């Protein structure tokens, strides 16, 4: 039993924090207000290897981080800006990760080097207007015509859409077969028939560009199919397992900074003749918050470690995501309360953390969906049926 990071992980983590403090911190507020991430930041991230963080060094020239170390990157980025962290998370965990696991050799050779270089940002299009928590019945279809698939339909809630160079798109190749009839495709942005639609203006995570994506008889070569036909749902689930751990790491980083903001404000704001931090009630509040962050960190590290070890981690991923995202919403809410009225105006950074945290309870499976995943494991082998 050893909780410590390796020297390499320590040095990487220190570098991540340095990068976040020097490059991300100063862009965060502006990015939030203007609802866009500066492209220069993503270029810098690419130069630092972050856009190929989980790609192996051989043969692609990625940074080759193990998954636990990668979550340390997300944590560090989210400390300053959850939007930046989410953008890099969707690029790496959901898109690059899927191509690495399931892409054909041709697809990998075509797309992965450009993804690592940050020239093609990744996006992951699963959700549809009628398929959110339940992505088993997609209305987007993919029909095999000769050596191509023709994709048709509307994807919603596609993070990174406007800056993306490659999309992982889920569609029904056999609509009658439900989840077993789904397939996943890698679709480069230049593919004819792929059209970026309108933008969602979100409460938080505002610098992430979230759009609808239209597939108007969008033709892709057959080798752009990821895995096999009918494996789409399996691919989505296995990818989301990693995704959930990543989201949990973002929640931990974000909440940790929120606690720091709370400590700072409590020391600065004077009422009743002294800093409000002198009040035991607020000290208790902050102690609770710090404890919750530490607990979420523990769950998240363990899930990430299992993933990095190649052991089953679906249950731990769901637990980490459920607990950490809730924790982040809870902690930012409490810290906002410590700020009083100042927490409720747009001047102080805590409001951004509060808004950003809330989104983490929804993305990559709502808390309710995580509970279903967890419960289905709890009741496995009993007579109780867990169904969504």
């Amino acid at each position, binding site marked *: 039993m050893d909780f410590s990071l390796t*020297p390499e992980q320590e040095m990487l983590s220190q570098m991540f924090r340095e990068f976040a403090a020097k490059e991300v911190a100063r862009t965060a507020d502006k990015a939030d207000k203007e609802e866009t991430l500066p492209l220069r930041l993503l270029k810098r991230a690419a130069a*630092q290897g972050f856009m190929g963080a989980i790609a192996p060094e051989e043969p692609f020239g990625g940074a080759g981080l193990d998954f636990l170390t990668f979550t340390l990157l997300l944590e560090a980025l989210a400390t300053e800006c959850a939007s930046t962290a989410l953008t890099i998370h969707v690029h790496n965990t959901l898109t690059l990760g899927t191509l690495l696991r399931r892409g054909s050799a041709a697809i990998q050779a075509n797309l992965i080097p450009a993804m690592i270089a940050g020239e093609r940002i990744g996006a992951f299009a699963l959700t549809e207007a009628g398929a959110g928590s339940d992505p088993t019945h997609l209305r987007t279809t993919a029909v095999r015509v000769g050596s191509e698939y023709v994709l048709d339909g509307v994807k919603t809630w596609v993070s990174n859409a406007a800056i993306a160079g490659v999309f992982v798109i889920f569609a029904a190749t056999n609509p009658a077969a439900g989840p077993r009839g789904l397939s996943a495709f890698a679709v480069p942005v230049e593919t004819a028939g792929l059209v970026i639609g309108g933008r969602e203006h979100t409460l938080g995570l505002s610098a992430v560009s979230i759009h609808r994506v239209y597939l108007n008889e969008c033709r892709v070569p057959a080798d752009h199919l990821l895995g096999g036909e009918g494996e789409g749902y399996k691919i989505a689930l296995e990818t989301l397992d990693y995704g959930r751990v990543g989201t949990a790491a973002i929640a931990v980083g974000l909440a940790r900074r929120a606690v720091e903001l709370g400590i700072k404000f409590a020391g600065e704001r004077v009422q009743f003749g002294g800093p409000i931090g002198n009040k035991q009630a607020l000290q208790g509040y902050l102690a609770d918050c710090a404890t919750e962050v530490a607990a979420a960190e523990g769950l998240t590290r363990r899930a990430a470690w299992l993933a990095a070890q190649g052991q089953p981690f679906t249950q731990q991923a769901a637990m980490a995501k459920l607990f950490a995202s809730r924790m982040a919403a809870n902690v930012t809410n409490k810290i906002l309360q410590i700020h009083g009225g100042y927490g409720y105006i747009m001047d102080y950074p805590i409001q951004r953390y509060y808004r950003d945290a809330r989104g983490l309870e929804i993305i990559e499976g709502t808390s309710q969906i995580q509970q279903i995943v967890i419960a289905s494991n709890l009741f496995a082998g009993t007579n109780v049926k867990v169904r969504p």
Partner: protein
Amino acid sequence: MRIVVCMKQVYDPATTRISRSREEFDLRGAVKITNTPDKHALEAALRLRAAVGGEVIALSLGDAEADDVCREAIAMGADRALLISGPEVIGVTGRAVARALTAGVRYLDAVDLVLTGQVGLTDGTGSLAPRLAAELGWEVCLDAVRLAPMTDGQIEVTVACSPGVGEIVCLALPAVISVATGSERPRYAHPARIANAWAPGLVEVCSCTRLGLDAAALTADVEVGGLILPPERTRGQTIVGPTETAADELVGLLRTKRIL
């Protein structure tokens, strides 16, 4: 060109506190980091190497933990590192540090240029470069913001004197140069290089004895004592009196505080 960069481990000033009651550093929670000014020196060395080729070697002196500094230097781009370590170097003072590092430079052999940071964070004085130059008998230059190699065994150094104003001097190699923190920002360690920084053979650890230094060479030239603390900041004082005299008093105050 063979460039040696002297790099040391320091307590991060951001995490180093001062205990008023004990009049000494309070190092609980203090984190050791690579002296950031030394990273500027390394950055300058890496740029020189990119321009003219050669080798960049990090040279450090300290306890076993200073291995971190060597690994970080390699992760940033240094080719290898020499760490002078052992019980005899613990707590050595400036004169002995310069002697040991000089022995290190001689041991590394055929060195063209030694770079140092401008100053050690927390409690440095910026005397290493001239001390080394004196030991080695080489030319020296302080506070360089830019280094440009020239063909005839010389190096052109731009030195910052005050904000926006500087001088250009030419030094004959071999030379010792301290690099100002106003120079190019040091790069981040790269993940791929971090992964390889612990590969065997990159950091050579060497004792003073192996470098031919005896205990007499390492005796202390100074003894570090307690801290002298400025009076605690007292807020809320009042400068009394009518406007005119208060203005006089403020001018006097600003003069003593050297703001005017």
